[in-house]
């Protein structure tokens, strides 16, 4: 798994490449957790190169959503592939998160 963070004027984008599983999820959390505390941030997780996500990754997504929105920010998932999109549907995440 690789994580790249791009800060733009209007939004901060996290690009995740590869697999977020039980082994790699703690690395993802360490890489992006500091962003959750920013006030009024628009945090975008770009999933164009995300191949797989297990419940350990979904927990980070839910935590990010809760913390970012609690600080008046916006949390967005972008460019999900079919398989990752299906996991979001199964878990009901697609109903509660903003997916573009």
């Amino acid at each position, binding site marked *: 798994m690789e994580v790249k963070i791009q800060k733009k004027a209007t939004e901060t984008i996290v690009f995740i490449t590869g697999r977020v599983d039980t*082994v790699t999820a703690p690395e993802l959390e360490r890489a992006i957790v500091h962003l959750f505390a920013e006030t009024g941030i628009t945090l975008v997780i770009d999933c164009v190169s995300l191949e797989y996500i297990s419940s350990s990754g979904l927990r980070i997504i839910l935590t990010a959503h809760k913390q970012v929105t609690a600080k008046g920010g916006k949390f967005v998932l972008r460019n999900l592939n079919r398989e990752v999109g*299906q996991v979001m549907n*199964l878990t009901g995440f697609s109903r509660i998160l903003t997916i573009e």
Partner: protein
Amino acid sequence: MVMEKILFLHNEIVEINKLAFFIEKIGNELGLSTELILNLNLVLEEAVSNVIFYAYPKGENHIISLSVSKTDNRLVFVLTDSGSPFDPTKIPDADTTLPANERQIGGLGIFLIRQIMDKLEYQRTNGKNVFIMEKQL
């Protein structure tokens, strides 16, 4: 066609990496779709990581076995460990209908297993947890 394979894993979290290769190889041999292979990977990761995290006292080394067999259109996974008794079929699901701020962080793993697989069964046999997960193809 009848097929049977078995994978042995240590109770260490890095062993999760072996699961992906195992299920991908089986999936390709059986001509399963990418979507189904990823779903099965998800199920096995949730089931195996539960055992690795919770079945044994910290610092102890143990072997977990995962067998897979295919008969006609049934794919059956059997996960066996000698850890403390634990019936995954008894874990309540996460409530996926709640709004985001009320959603609990845990409970998703077993929910995903139930959603993806067609039949789950647990047995405690000879001091071992035996978790059977079946998928109709």
